[in-house]
């Protein structure tokens, strides 16, 4: 067998071996991020389209509340008349938003199941979304397990970290772990971020290197 064929065969085998299940976590969190952007865009579009019919309702900030109010189709003060076709078109858009919303819920549930199998301790300490974002930024569960906790603390704050290295501005205190309750609601956020990243670091090491 000549060298080219040997390499082709060996590479095909290596490629299949090299792929682990944590790539599904990364891909699912990408899907969820896309769906969140999609929902925000569609809802703001719907808000504009409904705004002429009932201006007061379109000022509601909360998405769920807004959607449930729009479903009632009650004409408000300052509103103009919509024909049946106008209302139908808006209702179609609203149905689509519901569909995307339910798709997002299904994906989130799948992500949680996946993480319960692959990294149960990370799921417990960081939660599904933040844990998955950390895995994504690190480029895999193995890379995340080999990271020091101080690096986990600032994952997702690369822009401000490099700004610090170049211009000696203040270093970042937290990256994506800021979205965790224990950090965003704490009084001393830097300390809470340090604490949480330490916990995550220990847990993900147990997940990857420990017995399953």
């Amino acid at each position, binding site marked *: 067998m000549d*060298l*080219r064929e*040997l*390499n*082709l065969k*060996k*590479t*095909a085998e*290596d*490629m299949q071996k*090299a*792929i682990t299940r944590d790539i599904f976590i990364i891909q699912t969190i990408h899907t969820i991020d896309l769906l969140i952007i999609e929902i925000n865009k569609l809802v703001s579009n719907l808000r504009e389209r409904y705004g002429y019919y009932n201006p007061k309702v379109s000022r509601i900030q909360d998405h769920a509340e807004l959607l449930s109010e729009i479903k009632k189709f009650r004409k408000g003060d300052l509103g103009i008349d919509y024909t049946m076709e106008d209302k139908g078109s808006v209702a179609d858009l609203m149905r689509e938003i519901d569909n995307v919303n339910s798709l997002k819920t299904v994906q989130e549930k799948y992500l949680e199941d996946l993480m319960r199998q692959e990294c149960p301790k990370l799921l417990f300490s960081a939660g599904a979304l933040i844990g998955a974002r950390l895995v994504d930024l690190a480029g895999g569960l193995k890379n995340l397990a080999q990271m020091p906790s101080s690096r986990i603390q600032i994952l997702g704050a690369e822009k401000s970290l*490099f700004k610090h*290295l*170049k211009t000696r501005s203040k270093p970042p205190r937290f990256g994506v772990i800021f979205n965790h309750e224990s950090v965003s609601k704490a009084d001393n956020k830097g300390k809470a971020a340090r604490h949480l990243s330490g916990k995550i670091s220990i847990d993900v090491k147990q997940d990857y290197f420990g017995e399953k």
Partner: protein
Amino acid sequence: MNIEKTKFIGIFEGWQDKKRVFFTKSIDGKNFFNEFCIDDYIEFNPKRSKLSAAIIKKISLVPIKENMKILYLGAAHGYTASHISNMIKNGMMFCLDFAPRVVRDLYFICEERKNMAPILGDANDPDAYKSRVEQVDLIYQDIAQKNQVEILFKNLQFLKNNGHVLLAVKSRSIDVTKRPAEIFNAVEKQLSQKLKVIDKKELDPFEKDHCFFVCQKR
């Protein structure tokens, strides 16, 4: 557009809207990346390939010839690799990359080209793929790593005497805090321990903070 030969073997040029465009001639008529093409001549885009950017910046030597054996470290999706494959014709090129995802794309190109062989491996660890490569005439290295030159030195065992090295250095991956010119000088000094540096060119504006080196083994 008139396509003419350049002083480098296997690379052709033409002028379009007062812009110089480079081409290589596809050996089997295939155009893997849907580039602009005229008959079998396929555009060699300087924004996608550091070799093409170096040629546009008037590098003095591109030591790629027909029937050469090449070791390509950091082949990625295989854009530059597919063009080098056009130039070497009946030679052989070993394309190495580290990430399984990009090797998947590379694999399908290698399947169709008789002169390319893929390897999934880490350039840091030549012993792992030692048995799968031959002695080569040229090493092309395009990996953005901090210890890039060390990795090159480890792989010099595969290079024949008087063989050439083409090296693309990304200063940002070595140290973000220093000025690129400082880093390029340090790299040149380090390279000249084992190699003779023939030419170097910075690749602005096609690639930011990159430098392209042509070296020869002593």
